[in-house]
């Protein structure tokens, strides 16, 4: 599609969005559940199209934002105690733990390697054998099956120095908590998580909470179209779940991926930064695959993390704007973050700071 047509289509959708917002007698707040949507919205400058009574707030779908500080602490302690190599996605490298980030640990001589794929971690484990290699497992339902497949491969190949430290999370438990909030009018639902879990599973948003949700892709026009659909349903009180990413998302998701996940992982309670412990919202290795669990096989004594009491990541994650936090832009900046909302490049605070809403 050429640039001219793209801008015209965007302008058309923006005009519809303005019209719909104009019909509402109340401010409209849509939650972007997925961190990748937050990033895409900022990169395309979509907020410049929105009228003042439309607010998009970042939700809990940012694996770095919701990872507890002591996950980093535990990883570093494991690396020190067992002379292990930590392998991670890039997203986690600058997240602050209680004693510095993985980047800090690396600059002090710690072994930290960044990978694009969990399968790359297997290559590192083989290379460093017999040194324990610990993959830091962050992510939601999109990423979990890829680690499940990697673990199965590790088992088949008999790689015994490969471990996973799980901080994996699932999206429905926190979504159910957030849907109850009165001041959210609708949800921009994750595109690729839904490719795995399907678009049919979100009906509780409508049935139990009367809120609309639209599964959206990541191109700027996909997102504008989805927002227009959410607004129409919010303004006219006709909540539904709509799949606006049909070219990738099927109603019942990806059966092979779900089966892979189900074979290797089982649900457990998990602690979410800003939301506390949510029952059944985490994933842990099960059955024969628990031999890869770093938590049990490389135990360390991790002191509970001390969060800065002034940090308001909790409120920001559930919809408040960054300027309501006294640390924002002052003690907490991208180069020197306090909480993960500022560290993650798509976290609400980092995006606000970098892209201008100070």
């Amino acid at each position: 599609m050429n640039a001219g047509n793209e801008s015209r289509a965007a302008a058309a959708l923006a005009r519809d969005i303005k019209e719909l917002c104009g019909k509402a007698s109340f401010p409209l707040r849509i939650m972007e559940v997925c961190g990748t949507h937050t990033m895409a919205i900022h990169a395309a400058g979509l907020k410049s199209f929105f009228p003042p009574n439309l607010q998009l707030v970042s939700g809990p779908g940012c694996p770095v934002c919701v990872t507890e500080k002591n996950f980093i602490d535990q990883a570093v302690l494991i690396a020190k105690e067992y002379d292990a190599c930590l392998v991670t996605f890039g997203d986690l490298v600058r997240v602050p733990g209680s004693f510095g980030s993985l980047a800090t640990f690396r600059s002090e001589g710690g072994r930290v390697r960044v990978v694009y794929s969990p399968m790359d971690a297997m290559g590192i484990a083989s290379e460093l054998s017999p040194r324990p290699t610990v993959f830091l497992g962050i992510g939601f339902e999109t990423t979990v099956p890829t680690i499940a497949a990697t673990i199965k491969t590790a088992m088949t190949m008999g790689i015994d120095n490969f471990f996973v430290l799980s901080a994996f999370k699932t999206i429905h438990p926190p979504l159910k908590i957030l849907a109850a909030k009165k001041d959210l009018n609708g949800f921009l639902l994750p595109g690729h998580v839904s490719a795995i879990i399907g678009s049919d599973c979100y009906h509780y948003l409508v049935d139990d909470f009367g809120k609309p949700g639209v599964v959206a892709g990541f191109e700027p026009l996909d997102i504008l179209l989805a927002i227009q659909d959410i607004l129409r349903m919010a303004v006219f009180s006709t909540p539904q779940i709509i799949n606006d990413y049909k070219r990738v998302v099927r109603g019942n998701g990806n059966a092979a991926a779900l089966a892979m996940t189900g074979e290797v992982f089982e649900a457990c309670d998990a602690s979410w930064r800003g939301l506390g412990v949510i029952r059944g919202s985490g994933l842990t290795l099960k059955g024969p695959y628990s031999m890869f669990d770093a938590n049990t096989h490389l135990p360390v004594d991790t002191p509970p993390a001390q969060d800065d009491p002034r940090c308001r990541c909790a409120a920001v994650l559930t919809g408040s704007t960054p300027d309501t936090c006294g640390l924002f832009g002052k003690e907490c900046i991208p180069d020197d973050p306090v909480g993960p909302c500022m560290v993650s490049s798509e976290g609400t605070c980092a995006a606000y700071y970098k892209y201008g809403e100070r």
Partner: protein
Amino acid sequence: MCLAVPMKLIEITGEGTGKVDSGGVRTDVVLSMVPQAGLGDYLIIHAGFGIEVLDEEEAHIRLDLFRELAEAYRAQDEL
């Protein structure tokens, strides 16, 4: 939570693995979650894995919708 991009499947390289390409950047990916994938298909690639096959018909429907919106906007603009 889900950075993934469409890449074209250009070669089957083994049991459950294939090579994909986008813009001249190629990588080996795992195909175990997309058993229905065929050469020439566009796969959604996340962290070195295919997580879905792009439905080209739906992709065209979506592009047509955007083109219509653009045409309608241009027509209105010219009034």
